[in-house]
């Protein structure tokens, strides 16, 4: 039997196209039954699996520039498969690295809320349910049965809409296929993005758009070889599966920490 290579689902976000409109954030909330509260202005208490950051170049008027950066979970692979910052630290295996897809899962019923994963994640992609989720009377009607609402006291995060992967797999299986086509499994944010700034697919598949856009270098843990592409905090060795494209140098530089006078192309810090 022919052994198929495992998938490595990932995302490429074109920051030149991203308008910061927030559709990805809301599409994600709607798809994943994310709760909301009366005051969501404290962003450190606000659950946004997908969060759009506003970056500025720090220059005075009129040389100021801003750029929006949508930040889903990076689904870090780490320096060897599954060595994500969060997966390695979870004491109860409530967050796991799916070898088949490369997706970092979160098992809400397993999680007991120690929040070590949140401490480990430099992207602040993980969110804690500080409150019981409450929907105004009647609004539970729109809750999707494909994603279970989370109870108070557990951590949640972007799952690359893993339930959509499962649904697509089931559908393909009914049609007698084991392999998914590129457009059969797309995350909610990708689909909703009105600017087509988000591309989603298998980073291991050279035919997929994400591969062609990011041009990951397998010899260097998927570091992008497209000169306009970068990953957030590349140097930490988290090996994220979300790539960003920007034609603006200051934006690419804002993706990582650099010493003064240090050039942008630097190898990851360790394990190499």
């Amino acid at each position, binding site marked *: 039997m022919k052994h198929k290579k495992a998938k490595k689902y990932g995302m490429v976000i074109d920051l030149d196209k991203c308008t910061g409109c927030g559709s990805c954030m809301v599409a994600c909330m709607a798809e994943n039954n994310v709760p909301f509260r009366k005051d969501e202005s404290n962003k450190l208490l606000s659950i946004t699996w997908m969060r759009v950051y506003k970056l500025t170049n720090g220059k005075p008027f009129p040389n100021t520039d801003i750029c929006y950066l949508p930040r889903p979970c990076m689904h870090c692979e780490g320096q060897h498969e599954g060595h994500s910052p969060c997966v390695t630290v979870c004491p*109860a295996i409530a967050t796991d690295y799916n070898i088949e897809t490369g997706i970092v899962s979160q098992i809400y019923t397993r999680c007991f809320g120690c929040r070590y994963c949140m401490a480990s994640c430099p992207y602040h992609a993980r969110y804690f349910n500080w409150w019981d989720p409450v929907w105004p009377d009647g609004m539970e009607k729109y809750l999707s049965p494909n994603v279970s609402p989370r109870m108070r006291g557990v951590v949640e995060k972007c799952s690359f809409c893993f339930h959509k992967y499962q649904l697509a797999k089931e559908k393909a299986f009914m049609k007698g296929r084991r392999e998914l086509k590129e457009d059969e499994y797309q995350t909610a944010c990708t689909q909703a993005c009105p600017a087509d700034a988000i591309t989603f697919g298998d980073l291991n598949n050279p035919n997929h758009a994400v591969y062609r856009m990011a041009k990951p270098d397998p010899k260097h843990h998927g570091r992008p070889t497209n000169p306009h592409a970068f990953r957030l905090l590349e140097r930490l060795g988290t090996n994220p599966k979300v790539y960003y494209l920007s034609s603006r140098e200051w934006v690419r530089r804002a993706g990582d920490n650099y010493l003064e006078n240090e050039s942008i192309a630097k190898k990851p810090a360790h394990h190499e």
Partner: protein
Amino acid sequence: MDSALIPRGVKRCPFPQFILFVAIVGAVLLWGVYAMLLCWFKGLNQTNMNDAYGFALWIWADLAVIAVGGGAFFTGLLRYIFGKDDLKNIINYAVLIGFICYSSALLILAIDIGQPLRGWFIFWHANVHSMLTEVAFCLSCYFGVLTIEYIPLILENRQIDRVPFFHHLGHNMHETMAVFAATGAFLSFFHQGSLGGVAGVLFGRPFAFREGILIWPWTFFLFTWSAAACGPCFTILITKITETVTRKKLVKDSAIELLAKISGWMLLTYSIAKTADTWYWATVTAPSMGQTLMDFYSNNPLYGIWILILEIAICGFVPAFILITKKGRKNSLALWIAITLATIGVCINRWVMVLQVMAVPVLTFESWFMYFPSWQEIATTILPVAYGVILIAISYRYLPVFPNEPELNPMETLPAQETEKEEAVEPSVDLEQELKPAEA
């Protein structure tokens, strides 16, 4: 009233005074319990923690009490394994303080987790790669050891000891205490280390991340080391405080000085190691991730370089030098300063390795996060302190915690005779045994 329970040969304050004291501290304890119940029933929204501060005051308190509770394992190690017999005079108290610290740590953890009823998943669904799993296992086991070490002391209560079964149980437990001490030292080495590892393995957080040996980052060893160095200082500190409060000398100077001396050397070597670690991290590790030392200590309202100087120089080297010199150890004020500084030092270290780790921005477009605990967090953190005070008060009153006490504080008259009647109906006890030091 309760004189029958009070060990022979020692004097205790009048019962009402004792009750008043316990009641006052108990009120604080109840305040903490109320806050704890709020956290349990309403959830962690009662705290000021947030998604940037998933670890905050509680985890600091946890790490700090475990660090200062390290006096138990290290004193035990010295006493039972390295045969420092002088330490028998302080080992009971070290164990008691350790027991309080560790039970507090477990309690805080039980409040801190979002789903306390699922807390046991850490054992059931254990992830062996997680430092926290290692912490949970070793911590729980070591708490068991501490309980076993503490039980014989309880069994030495005058009334309990009258029961032959308990008497013999206690005796036998004493015999095997070396085994437990060794086990405790072993477990402590790992969980103290793992707690250091908790921060050190965070390769996504350049402020915390450290290289190391095999799976253990340097913080693993530094934490064990600092706990061994500062834990005994805390034991001495609490002993000194107890002596001040009771207005009695409870432990012989020789024991204190021996422990202080060993602590001093541990602290000195630790401080040197910590300096080397900091140096390497500041010049090699962090720059390789694009960050400089001052990135971690500027552009924010609190965390300046002063914190590093305070931790290593003022609360590391200064007390170390005091403690390793005979003059320093013998001078009461200097000793006080040294043990206080050492305790503060290790607490600052734990604070930095928890709170500052969370506060430092990693993404370039995020800024420093600041945090101030809610009253519920503060109350639940004070709760174990109140509990500790009460447990010490009760233990001190009813158990022969300080074997030197009768000798150092000879009594002019025997204690009240009220209990004689009661004693009559009790089985007779071997008086000789009763007066033996607890750890016999």
